[in-house]
Structures are given as structure tokens and as C-alpha cells.
């Protein structure tokens, strides 16, 4: 096995092994555990940076384990996978910092950080999965490693929500199992391939492929929280905030959306999907989810639940990008994988900082919070503006390309969806910003713990500032030489080259 085959394994092992080690450490080994966590997260970012550099220079990293004569487990670093890996490893580092601060007063840290590491390992495996079987492996591992995090509080509500979470995600997983088996039966064992692995037309009857596509989308749609399969996501807000942050920005929801992107571009191929007429229904589902999620977010009084419904809406931009034929829309969808991640995680970091520092959980308690915690509120404002989609933030870039793509594909109605979503986003975020900066505080804070040198625990606030900065940079430097958009253009270039005959 060469170095090129080992690198994807190392990237996974860099969080898996520390996770296992953490399980074996005693609960009271706080410093060693923190060192391991941070060391592993930094190490992973380093390995991924190396991988990005290599992939950018045309090196191919691939590890392959045969299960049977024709069934393989494959880990491969392709541009799309590397995009997701980079996002998850950077955000894992920041979330680890945040989680160390957040969990300081709580028990069961060993269990938490152990599963936290397993969860990231599974996410990275999803990103690097080179075929649907490997994806399924990692996808189910993610479900399992996330469950203990969702129920981490261990009270009756958490246990109940854990049951809901499992009921949804395992059903989706069982559906994906059947779908993958059917896919392999129809088309033989396939690897993901730019431009699509299936021969369309050719491999199987159109009807079978049409049905299978929506079976797969429905299975993946559970984690993606596509309406009407989204119910578990707002409920899962009982989890500790670092878990919510990871769930929404990096791991679970994003894994589902990433799976849909893989199915559209690298199983069916965007051209094949277009030919079979799969894209129009998918874009309708995505649009409904975008609008519905925003409408529900408007009515939520709990800050985290509002953010959760906002995720339902925002993640579907990625699906919408995949559902419109044309390189511009694809670009918008692909960059949104990263952009949604950094913006949403900023909001969760801020929400966590508010709740841990001042005991603020509800949106109507935010009056005057900007004067008490200005730095956090700045980060919150930047990310919220990004969510609304105003320049110069990352969110604007996503919406811009999605809109251009829709127009160039002749689907003007999508603009209406984008406009509605923008207005709704503004409607549920602007009042928070207004209350935070200009609201008059009438009652004392539910609690006020000034931990650390800044306005709160610096472990909680620093990550939010970093991701807010990234949100701005991703918007300002989008056209620069080293940017998410540049990388996404490489991906788009691959997906729209007609698949070479096999």
C-alpha cells in the first residue's frame, strides 16, 4: 500500500484513533483529553491541507478494500469530497474549541468527546467515500455515533428525542440500504464518477431508474431534512449546542445533502438526470422545503429552534443547486455546502455563547444583548446577514449563482422562491439583530457568568469570531485565486464534461 492509498485512511484515523483513546481515558483526565482533542483536530486540518494541495496538483489518493470479487470499499479524494472534508475538518477544530469551553461545567465529557471524534470520522468517511456502498457504511456510522451526542443530556426529553432521531434516521438508512442494493442490481457495482456512473439511457429501464432516483432521494432526504421528513431536526435541538452546531453545519444534515449531490452528479450524472426528467420534481421539493422551513422559522420563539428551521430551509439551497441544469446553478449549490456550514455554525456558536453566558434561550430575551456581548453579537449579525444573502457575505455568492443558474436554465420561478426566502430570512433575523443592538433591557439577565477575559468564556467566543470572519472572507474573496468558489469551479468543470465512454 502506497502513501497515496494511506492518506485517506490517515485523514479518518486522525480523529478515529484519538476518539478511541479518549474512551479508554478516565473521566478526570481533563488536560490530556483536551490536548488529544486539539492535537487531533489540528493534525487533521494539516493532513487535509496536504491532501488539498495534492489534489489541486492532480495527485489521486485512493484506498480500496475488496469485500468480494466485485464489491469494494473505496476511499478516494476527489475535488467534491475534498471540499466537504476541508469544511468538516476546519469546523471540527473550531467546534472542538467551542465544545471544550461549553462542556466545562458538565459531566460525562469522556463519552461526549469520544463520540464527537467518531462522528467527525464518519463524516470524513462520507466525504471520501468513492462508491455508494462505502457511502452507506459511513452514513450509518454517522447515525450511530451521533445518537449518544443527541441524548447526551440524558433527561427524559433527550431520551425521547433520541428515539425520534433514530426512528427517522434509521428508517432513512434502511431505505438507503435497499436503494443501494437495487442500484447495484440494476447497474452492477459502480464507483462515483464525474459526469455520472450510470449509462443513461442504457443500463436499465427509464422507469426503474426514475423510481430508484426518488427512492434514494427520499432515503437521503431524511437526514437532509427535506419537507416532510424534517421533523426530527428541530426536536434534536435538545442536544448540547456544540452537537447542534456539528449536526447542522458539518455532519448529519450536510451529509444527507452531500449524498444527494453525489447521487445527482456522480451516479446519474446531471445530464442523465436532466434527460430522465428527474430535476424538475427535485427542484419543486427543494423549493417547498426552502419556503416552508423559513415560514416555520418565523414562528419559533426558541432561538435554537428558529435556527433549526432556518437550517431546514438553507440546506435545501444545496439540493436546489443540484436540481437546476447548468454550471452556474451547480456552482451556487456546491459553494453553499461550505457557505451554509460556516454561517450556520457561527449562529450556533453565538446562540451557545448567549445561553451559557447569560442564560438566554428565547428570541424575545435578546434585547440589549449587543451591549453586554458586542463581539458575539457582531459575529451573529455577520452570519445572519449572510443567511439573508446580502453582500458582501458568503450567502450572497450562493444566492447570486443560484439565481443566475435558474435564469439561464429558463426557470424564472426559482427567482421567486429565492426572493421569498430572502424576505423571510430577513423577517426572522432582522428583528433579532435590531433587538440585540437597539433593544432596551428591562429585566436582569437570567444569569450572568463572566468567565474569561472577554465578555464571556473566550473558548466560546473565539470560534464564533473566526467563522464570522470566514463568512466575510468567503464573500469578499470569492473571485480570488484561492477560494471556495475557485475550487467549486473545478468541480463544476468536471461534472459538465460529457462522461468518457467506458
Amino acid at each position, binding site marked *: 500500500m502506497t502513501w497515496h492509498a494511506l492518506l485517506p485512511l490517515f485523514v479518518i484515523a486522525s480523529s478515529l484513533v484519538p476518539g478511541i483513546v479518549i474512551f479508554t481515558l478516565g473521566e478526570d483526565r481533563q488536560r490530556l483529553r483536551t490536548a488529544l482533542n486539539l492535537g487531533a483536530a489540528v493534525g487533521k486540518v494539516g493532513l487535509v491541507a496536504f491532501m488539498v494541495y495534492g489534489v489541486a496538483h492532480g495527485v489521486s489518493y485512493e484506498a480500496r478494500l475488496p469485500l468480494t470479487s466485485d464489491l469494494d470499499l473505496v476511499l478516494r479524494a476527489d475535488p467534491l469530497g475534498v471540499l466537504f472534508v476541508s469544511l468538516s475538518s476546519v469546523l471540527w477544530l473550531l467546534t472542538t474549541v467551542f465544545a471544550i469551553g461549553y462542556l466545562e461545567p458538565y459531566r460525562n465529557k469522556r463519552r461526549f468527546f469520544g463520540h464527537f471524534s467518531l462522528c467527525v470520522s464518519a463524516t470524513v468517511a462520507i466525504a471520501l467515500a468513492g462508491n455508494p456502498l462505502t457511502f452507506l*457504511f459511513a452514513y*450509518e456510522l454517522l447515525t450511530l455515533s451521533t445518537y449518544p451526542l443527541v441524548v447526551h443530556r440524558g433527561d427524559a426529553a433527550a431520551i425521547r428525542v433520541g*428515539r425520534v432521531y433514530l426512528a427517522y434516521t*434509521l428508517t432513512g438508512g434502511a431505505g438507503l440500504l435497499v436503494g443501494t442494493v437495487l442500484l447495484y442490481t440494476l447497474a452492477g457495482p459502480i464507483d462515483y464518477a464525474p459526469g455520472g456512473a450510470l449509462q443513461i439511457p442504457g443500463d436499465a429501464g427509464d422507469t426503474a431508474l426514475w423510481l430508484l432516483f426518488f427512492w434514494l432521494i427520499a432515503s437521503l432526504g431524511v437526514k437532509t431534512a427535506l419537507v416532510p421528513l424534517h421533523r426530527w431536526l428541530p426536536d434534536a435541538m435538545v442536544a448540547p449546542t456544540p452537537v447542534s452546531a456539528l449536526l447542522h453545519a458539518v455532519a448529519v444534515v450536510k451529509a444527507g445533502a452531500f449524498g444527494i449531490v453525489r447521487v445527482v452528479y456522480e451516479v446519474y450524472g446531471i445530464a442523465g438526470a436532466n434527460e430522465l426528467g428527474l430535476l424538475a420534481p427535485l427542484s419543486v421539493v427543494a423549493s417547498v422545503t426552502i419556503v416552508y422551513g423559513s415560514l416555520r422559522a418565523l414562528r419559533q420563539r426558541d432561538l435554537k429552534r428558529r435556527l433549526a428551521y432556518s437550517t431546514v430551509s438553507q440546506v435545501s439551497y444545496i439540493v436546489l443547486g443540484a436540481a437546476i441544469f447548468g454550471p452556474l446553478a451547480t456552482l451556487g449549490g456546491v459553494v453553499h455546502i461550505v457557505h451554509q456550514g460556516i454561517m450556520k455554525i457561527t449562529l450556533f456558536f453565538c446562540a451557545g455563547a448567549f445561553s451559557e453566558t447569560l442564560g438566554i434561550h428565547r428570541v424575545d430575551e435578546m434585547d440589549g444583548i449587543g451591549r453586554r456581548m458586542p463581539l458575539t453579537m457582531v459575529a451573529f449579525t455577520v452570519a445572519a446577514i449572510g443567511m439573508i444573502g446580502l453582500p458582501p457575505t458568503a450567502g450572497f455568492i450562493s444566492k447570486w449563482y443560484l439565481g443566475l443558474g435558474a435564469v439561464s436554465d429558463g426557470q424564472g420561478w426559482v427567482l421567486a422562491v429565492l426572493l421569498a426566502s430572502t424576505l423571510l430570512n430577513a423577517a426572522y433575523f432582522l428583528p433579532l439583530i435590531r433587538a440585540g443592538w437597539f433593544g432596551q433591557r428591562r429585566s436582569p439577565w437570567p444569569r450572568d457568568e463572566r468567565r474569561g477575559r472577554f465578555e464571556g468564556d473566550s473558548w466560546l467566543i473565539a470560534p464564533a469570531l473566526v467563522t464570522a470572519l470566514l463568512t466575510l472572507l468567503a464573500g469578499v474573496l470569492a473571485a480570488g485565486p484561492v477560494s471556495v468558489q475557485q475550487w467549486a469551479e473545478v468541480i463544476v468543470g468536471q461534472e459538465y464534461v460529457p462522461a468518457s465512454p467506458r
Partner: protein
Amino acid sequence: MAWAAAWVIAIPCVAGALAFALRGALRGLFIALGVAGATAAAAALVVFVARDGARDLALGGWLAPLGIRLRADGLSAFFIALQAGVGAIVSGYAAGYFAGDREGKAFWPLWLTLWAGLCGLYLTGDLFNAYVALELIGVTAVGLVAASGGAALVAGLRYLIVTLTGSLLYLAGVALVYAEIGAVDMEAAAQGLGPSPVAHVALALMAAGLLLKTAVFPMHFWLPPAHANAAAPASAILSGLVIKGSFYLLVRIWNDVFSAHADDMLAELMGVLGVAAVIWGSAQAIVAARVKMLVAYSTVAQVGYLLMAFPLGGDAWPGAMYFAAAHGLAKAAMFAVAGAIARELGHDDIAKLGGAAGTLPAGFFAFALAGVSLIGLPPSGGFLGKWLLLSAAADHDHMLYLAAIPAGTLMAAGYVFRVIAPALAELRRAPRPSPWRLWREAPPLVLALAALALGFSLSPALVLLSRGAPFGGGG
């Protein structure tokens, strides 16, 4: 190779006798030597079969029909590997479990003799000797249950009646085979049996007896009380290994003796019974009050998947065998943990498990890992077994199995997480972890990790299973 096959049977047999006759430290020594020797012999046999292919072995130079003909092919070696692997680890668990316990006196001779009986069954090439092995397995297995006394005694007696009935039904089939062709050697029977009514009746009788002994729905009534009331190491052996013995024999005669005219109707019936077993066993596990009862009903459910190979055929055969191996490992792990729970908490009542993961962290971790394989989530042997079964079902457009397997998966998740979820609950006062005890924590962890490791090692298992083409003409 011949010596390895003979030793696979002889070593545990002799060790069992010594465990009965000796006392004190010497007894412990011979038990340890017996387990180690039997495991080593099994490993050698597996290596030989994997390398050189299937072999016929005539013990003492006597040939059929008078000699005891042994035959080791991939299927035999696969099950012997399972027997030795799970057996050795469970023995380690039992050594700790029974330390200073009088019940252990009955356990070791019974268990080692059972080991010999199972290996004899896997190696025999003769229908009648298979009956003798079945009886040996049945009687010793009953002993393992009944030795716990009380409720287990009743369960054991019921089990004895059932297992004797099953053996005699099987023997009636053997007698019919003899009446038809004048031989009971498997190879001779495979060549001599035509599609006659007598052959069909013989197959039906044998299948009925073996399905009864495998606890296939609706003939499973005896299993949950027997497996749930035995001592934990015995439960692990019974659920993990013993029911695999009668299942193996059914697979063997189906493919190697009656292959030319296996009964399609009977195959479909067994598949439907399998589906019913998955649904019914899982439902019972979902409402079970005790951890051990839950795990026992889960065995009823998991046996259902094994039966789906009969109508599906083809790739489903190795799939079902792989599934059986994963189940053996995972189920043994679960019963071992259940035993630790019962000992540590003084009960295994699911309603009172709140926060128990704090008391037995390693145990519940092992239970969860074993649950991954049992549910059939990747990476695990259970997942790959289900994958192969599903692929076979998709190939033949068998909608029933295509729907039943994921449904069973979800139900299994339902009952596994019934144990995991309350155990993760946070108590107002954190429970103090019970001190780490090697015999109690390590065996279930090793078993569960092995079940997960099967998720990456399908390829060598398929190579082993193909030796001698045990499923060559089957399906």
C-alpha cells in the same frame, strides 16, 4: 489434515471427561488445555481447508459404510471456526463467571462435550452419525440449561422433550433414506436418491426435526425460557452456537444430499416462516421485560434471516452463513453483557436500567457494538450478510424479502435501543463505575469487535466457504 480433524473432536471430548473426573487445580489445568488445544486444532483445520480444499477422512482406515467417515469442506471449516472462536472467548468469560461457584462443576464437562458434539456434527459425512452428534448436542445443551435449577429446570425439561422429538423426526428421515437406497452415507445418498415420494417425505421429516431444534417460528416456544433462564455463559453458547448446529445440518442435507430435487414448495415455506420469525421474534423482543428475554427473542428473530437462504439460493447461501457467524459473535457478546448486568445490578429488568451505563460502561459499550451487528448496520458481519441476502432478493425480484429484511432491521434497532437508551440516562447522582474486571469486560468486547471486524473480511470468508463447493448444486 486428518489428525487436525480428529483432534478437533477428540480434544474437547477428552477434556470434558477429565473435567468431570478430576478435582482442584488439575481440573482447571485440563480445562484450559482442552479449550486451547481444541481451538488450535480448529485453527489448523481451517487453514488446511482454506489452503488445500475439501477432504474426506476415513478414521482408522475404515471406509464407508462401516467406518466413521469425516468430511471437511469450506462449510464445515467455517462453522468450526465459529465454534472455536466464540467457544474460546466464552470459555474465558465462563472461567470468571463460575469462579468459586458450584454451578461451574456441571458447566465444564457439559460444555466441552457439547463442543465435541458440535465439531463432530460439522465434520461427519454420514447421516446417522449426524443423528448421534445431534443427540449429544441436545442432551448436553439441556444440561447447561437445567443446571441453573428453578425456572431453568422447567425450561430445560421442555427443551429436552423438544430436542429429542426433533432428533427422532430427523432419524425417521434417515431411516427412510436407508430404506430407499440402502445407505446413510451423505455422498452415497446424494447419488442414489431420486425424486421419489419417499425422498420427499424423508426431507420433510428431517427438515421438520431440524427446524424444531433451530427454534424456527412457530416452533420457537421452547427457546426464550431456556435461553433466558440459563446461566449467562450457557445462554451465550446456546444462542450463539448450539442452534447453528441443527441449522448447519439442514443446510448440509438440503444442498449436498437432496440437492438434485430440493423441494421448491418447502423452500418457499421456510422462507415465509423466516419472515414470520423475523417479525414475531422482533415484536416479542420489543415488549420483553428482561434483558435476557429480549436477547433470547432476538435469536428467534435472527434465525428467520437464515431461513431466507432456502428460497433465495445463490449468493444468499454464503450470505446466510456469514450472517450466522456474525449472529453467533454478537449474540454471545450480548448474553455475556446481560449476565454482567444481572450480577452487577442484581436484576436485568429493562424498566430499571436507568443510568446503568454509568455502572457498567464497558459492558454497555460492548452491548451497543454487538447491537450494531445484530441490527445489521455497517460495518459488521450482520450488515454484509443482509447485503448478500438483499442482493439475492433483488436479483430474483422477491419483494417479500426485499421488504422484510429492512423491516426486521428497524425492529431490531427498536429492541436494541430499548436497552441502550435508558442506560444512557443521566441520574441526579452519577453512578460509580463498577471496577474493571477482565473476565467480565473483555470477552464481550472482543466478541462484539469481532462481529464488527467481519464487516471488512467478507472476501476470505467467501473463499473459505467456496472450498468443496458446498452450495454447488443448491438453491
